[in-house]
């Protein structure tokens, strides 16, 4: 999936972008390049700088240093109303004194489009978001999800070069969030507009992005496809922020044969980090789904433990296995014929040494 897409031309480049507020850096040396038609998500916790980057692209914040290039041209000096971008806000921001039609037509009116053409385009957009016939309604008469769809239509009506979305789903109910994000992705694919989406919800990011930029405290931690970011996290932060991560505290036994011990149980790693010494501590990380009950596929690392917790989540069963000093989280699919292990049961778990990640902090 990641390498199959054809090479698309570069559309947006952030070069050495830095933003400081009163001397305090909020965005540090961001260097990013996005291709035309891509759906990029800026993902990170509150305060990581993702919204600041978005607002710099939109033109509401001026970069302290660095530049923003769109199709090769530096737009850092352009005011927002000349950048031809569409933006969707967390709080919908529909103009309260205008009905849906007039909201959607606003950008077209500013651009001087004649009334007949405006009407046709508005109809088109309303059909796209599935709200045909709602033209005469006012924002206060509609639900959050509907308002956000209108906001999307309004942003897309003037055929912008880029679409920016600032946590557009955070204010909505869980169910709507899931259906609306799929809708947004479908519309974006339809229209092929380069899109930058900001969120703190990693599930959202994973499910709809072409690529994800993971940010933490102003730094870009990793850029990659959802698969890459999840399965090959570059740093400890990425691994813990995106999905769940197990951490086992091991001690190096022998550097030559790459053996380590966790709670007295020894096994071999695929590789040791450079500079590892005998008896030194080492943090081993792995995803819960990489750990299996028993030894179904001949995994090379086998550990014994006691079931400390069983969470039956429906299709997935999450177990917590006590190895002694370490707790291991294990996800396994529900088996309609076999009930999950009981509490305090002694069990055997296994994983492939190649699935163990040793991450820099």
């Amino acid at each position: 999936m990641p390498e199959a897409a054809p090479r698309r031309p570069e559309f947006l480049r952030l070069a050495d972008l830095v933003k400081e507020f009163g001397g305090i850096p909020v965005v540090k040396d961001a260097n990013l390049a996005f291709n035309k038609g891509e759906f990029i998500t800026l993902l990170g916790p509150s305060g990581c700088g993702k919204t600041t980057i978005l607002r710099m692209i939109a033109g509401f914040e001026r970069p302290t240093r660095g530049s923003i290039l769109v199709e090769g041209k530096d737009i850092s000096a352009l005011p927002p109303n000349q950048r031809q971008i569409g933006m969707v806000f967390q709080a919908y921001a529909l103009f309260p004194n205008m009905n849906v039609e007039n909201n959607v037509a606003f950008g077209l009116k500013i651009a001087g489009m004649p009334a007949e053409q405006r009407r046709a385009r508005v109809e088109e957009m309303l059909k796209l978001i599935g709200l045909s016939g709602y033209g005469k309604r006012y924002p206060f008469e509609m639900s959050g999800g509907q308002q956000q769809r209108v906001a999307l239509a309004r942003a897309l009506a003037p055929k912008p070069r880029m679409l920016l979305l600032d946590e557009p789903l955070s204010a909505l109910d869980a169910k709507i969030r899931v259906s609306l994000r799929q809708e947004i992705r479908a519309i974006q694919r339809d229209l092929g507009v380069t899109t930058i989406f900001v969120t703190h919800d990693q599930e959202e990011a994973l499910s709809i992005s072409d690529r994800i930029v993971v940010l933490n405290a102003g730094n870009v931690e990793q850029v990659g496809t959802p698969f890459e970011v999840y399965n090959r996290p570059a740093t400890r932060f990425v691994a813990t922020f995106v999905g769940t991560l197990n951490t086992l505290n091991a001690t190096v036994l022998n550097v030559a044969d790459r053996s380590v011990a966790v709670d007295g149980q020894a096994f071999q790693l695929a590789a040791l980090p450079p500079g590892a010494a005998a008896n030194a501590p080492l943090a081993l990380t792995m995803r819960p789904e990489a750990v299996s009950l028993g030894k179904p596929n001949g995994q090379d690392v086998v550990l014994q433990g006691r079931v400390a917790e069983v969470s039956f989540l429906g299709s997935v069963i999450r177990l917590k296995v006590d190895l002694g000093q370490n707790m291991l989280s294990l996800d396994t699919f529900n088996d309609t014929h076999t009930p999950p292990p009981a509490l305090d049961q002694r069990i055997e778990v296994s994983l492939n040494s190649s699935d163990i990640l040793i991450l820099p902090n």
Partner: protein
Amino acid sequence: MFPSSNEPLTGATNVAPVGRGGWIGRLPRLRLGEVLGVAPFIIFAVMFLVLPPFYLFGLAFTDKAGQFTLQNIVDLGQPLIVSAFWISILISAASALIGAVVGLFIALAVIRGNLPGWIRAVVTTFSGVASNFAGIPLAFAFISTVGRLGILTILLRTVFHIDIYRSGFNLFTFSGLTLIYCYFQIPLTILLITPAIDGLKREWSEAAETLGAKPWQFWTYVGIPVLWPNLLGTLSLLFANAFGAVATAYALTGTSINIITLQLYAQIRGDALQNPGLGAAIALAMVAIAAFANVIYLIVRTRAERWLK
């Protein structure tokens, strides 16, 4: 006096079943405590807010012998009284308009002009003070400033050789009074309109900008329309405020300026019109005018609140 503790304190009031009785059938069954709680308020309001105007209403239609008459209403058409009303309306409208426009600009400057944060706090406090600084001290302050021997008058004459009184300015006229009224109308506007300007979400202007709008386009299509109900409401409140003011004018010139409140004052003080019925008629007309302004305010406010949920 209060309901016993094992009765539920809150929740829906006990409502009698809705039958064909209509409104009567829907009166809540009141407990003694509740009645005693609101009774002082109701009694006070009736005695001091409701009865007096009603009484005056009746008095306006009474002649000196105590009989019903429409003569007082007719007498409202006397040239002196009509001109007094007219001048009052002019001054009130003028000071309301100037106050609203200037106040709006100052409020916009302070809230959306990206000025240092302390300016807003100072302006808010000052507006609170200045809007209460009406009446006699305000008149004194203006007399000290631009009265015939006022500091500014003398300064302009001695330093800049401009004699404002020779050029036609006179504090002790209607235009002077309007100028003084602005001193509390402007701050009152700032106080009233600030919440509405705060309510203009940043995202609206940002959204408008991303859609290509220049600032004047935002204000024309979104900003002013959203503020409009509040502006209109502020205008009517300002009008009613100036219309009923007495003390400032009195301190300025005694009763020699012919505004309607001073006419009424003279009448009450010394029965200048020799006809309490006429006084009541004047009072009635004043209430009608002020009420009209306030009704506009109420209508406009309810429509605005619909939008800005």
